Structures are given as C-alpha cells and as structure tokens.
C-alpha cells in the first residue's frame, strides 16, 4: 500500500507539472457547456450565418432538459474519449521507451503496483474533470432549459464515469502491449470504436455491452428511475475493465522480463 501511494503521488506530481490538472478539467468544462449554449443560441446562429431564402422560417423546438444533457454526454463520448486516449497514450509506453520504467522497476516495486497506481492516477484526473464538466453542463441546462435533479446528475456521473474508466483500462492495456505512444493512442480509439460497432451489430445479444451505457442513461433521465439493464451494463463494464487491467499487468510482467 505504501508503494502504491508513492507511485500514485509521483504520478499526481507529474500530472501537475505537465499542466494536466489545469487543461484536462478545462477541456471537459468546455465540452460540457458548448452544447447547451449552442443549442440555446441555434436560432440566432442560423440567422446570422444566413443563406436562408427571404421569408423562410421554421420552428426549432426547444429540446427537453435531459436531451441537452445527453448532448453533452455525446460530446464526451467523442472528443472526451479522444482527449483521454491522447493524454494517456504515453503513460507507460513513453516511460518504457525512455527507460524511466526500468528506473522505477529496478526498485522493489511490483508490476501490479506500478500499473494499478498509474491507472488510478489517470482515473482520478478524468473522473474529477468529468465531474467538473458535468456540473458546468448541468448549471447551463438548469438556467437555459429546465431542471434536472442533482441526484440524477450524480447517477449520470457515476454510470458514465464507468464507461470512461473502461476507456482508461483499454489505454493502460495498450500501453503495456506497445512502446510507441502514437500507436497506443490509435489502438485505444480503434478499440473503443470497435466496441460500439460490435454492439450495434449484435445489438440483440449484447444487451449489457459497455457501449450501451449512454442509451440506458438516457432512459434513466427521461423515466426518472434506474433501469435494471443499467445495473447489468455497469457490472459488465466494471468486469471488462478489471479483466483488461489484469491482462495489462500480465503482459507488462512478461514483456519486461523478456
């Protein structure tokens, strides 16, 4: 446990020095507030961009509050995942390439400690950033569109946070497989895209696939109660993330020994 905290603290310190603790939360806040704002100002934006024939008018219905929050989540599932993949692509692979990993592992630090501490450090950063972004989005949705209860927001954070942890686990796993950060980032994104493609194709079989979590969150927000499928999906997501982490520790151990 002591070892874990040491590696964890070192990781936190480095994230601070890299300004990650400044720019990642800010980017998540930007992603969170851009959709409520642009949806709200859509009529004005269309008007000022022009290009419509004289006299053309059409009513743009105001979407319900929870739909706008879902738009913010959609931003996180695209650009947020991209940011996570790019931010964490050098996490272990970069250190292995430069030899820092050897400097750490020459000391009596377990491989499992090293990998899990790094995973936790990124997870804390991402979950805190995601929370900040979601709060910002919630604030704007409440002002511009309508009320969403704080409880619903926290559940959204919890369940969608699991999906983000899944993305981080993929990234950590790829980090232990390859030494080139660019390749790691690319494969992480590919893996995430594959998850949703496979889920779409085998939609009727994979009821609890991690990629379906945002769909169930939508149901939760519109119905006001947590559907049973959401719990199942959450469990499956946690399970796959844990398996990825164990696989990461295993490959890391065999790769470093060789």
């Amino acid at each position, binding site marked *: 446990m002591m070892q874990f905290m040491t590696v964890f603290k070192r990781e936190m310190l480095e994230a601070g020095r890299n*300004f990650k603790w*400044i*720019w990642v939360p*800010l980017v998540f806040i930007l992603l969170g507030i851009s959709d409520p704002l642009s949806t709200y100002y859509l009529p004005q934006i269309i008007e000022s961009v022009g290009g419509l024939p004289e006299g053309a008018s059409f009513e743009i219905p105001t979407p319900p509050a929870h739909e706008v929050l879902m738009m913010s989540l959609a931003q996180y599932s695209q650009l947020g995942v991209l940011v996570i993949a790019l931010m964490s692509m050098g996490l272990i692979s970069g250190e292995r390439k430069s030899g820092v990993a050897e400097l750490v592992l020459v000391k009596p630090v377990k491989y499992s400690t090293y990998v899990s501490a790094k995973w936790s450090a990124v997870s804390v950063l991402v979950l805190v950033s995601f929370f900040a972004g979601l709060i910002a989005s919630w604030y704007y949705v409440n*002002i511009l569109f309508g009320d969403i209860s704080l409880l619903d927001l926290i559940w959204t954070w919890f369940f969608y946070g699991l999906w983000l942890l899944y993305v981080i686990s993929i990234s950590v796993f790829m980090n232990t497989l390859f030494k080139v950060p660019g390749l790691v980032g690319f494969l992480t994104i590919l893996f995430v895209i594959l998850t949703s493609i496979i889920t779409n194709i085998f939609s009727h079989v994979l009821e609890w696939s991690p990629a379906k979590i945002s769909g169930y969150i939508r149901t939760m927000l519109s119905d006001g109660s947590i559907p049973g499928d959401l719990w199942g999906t959450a469990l499956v997501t946690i399970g796959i993330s844990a398996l990825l982490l164990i696989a990461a520790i295993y490959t890391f151990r065999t790769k470093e020994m060789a």
Partner: protein
Amino acid sequence: MAEVFETINWALVAPLLVIQLILQVVALIDWFRIEHTNGPKIMWLFIILLLNMIGPILYFVVGRRQE
C-alpha cells in the same frame, strides 16, 4: 451583426471566454519556459495564439515533448 451582439447574454458566454483565456495563458507560460517542443518552437507560438480553443489543447497534447 450588431443586433446579434446585443441579443447575446454575455453573462452566459463569458465563462467560455475566460476558460479559453486561461488555457491560452497557461500554454503561453509553458511555451516560454520549455526548452524544446515537438517541432519548431515558433510554430507552436502561432498555433497557441491563432487557433482558438484547439490551439492550446493541441499544444498540450502534441507540442510538449514526451520525454
């Protein structure tokens, strides 16, 4: 265009501008202090200054050399 500016509630848009400013300033401070960037250093100055929002983020993700 002028009336569009008036219809915008600046209290709503201001946070967006503040966040962008913070990102840009932090990226600039780091740009001054860092010795080497990924690629020509002067190029990153232009990217940070000229590309709104995306510039500083690109700098943090790609520009800082991963050593």
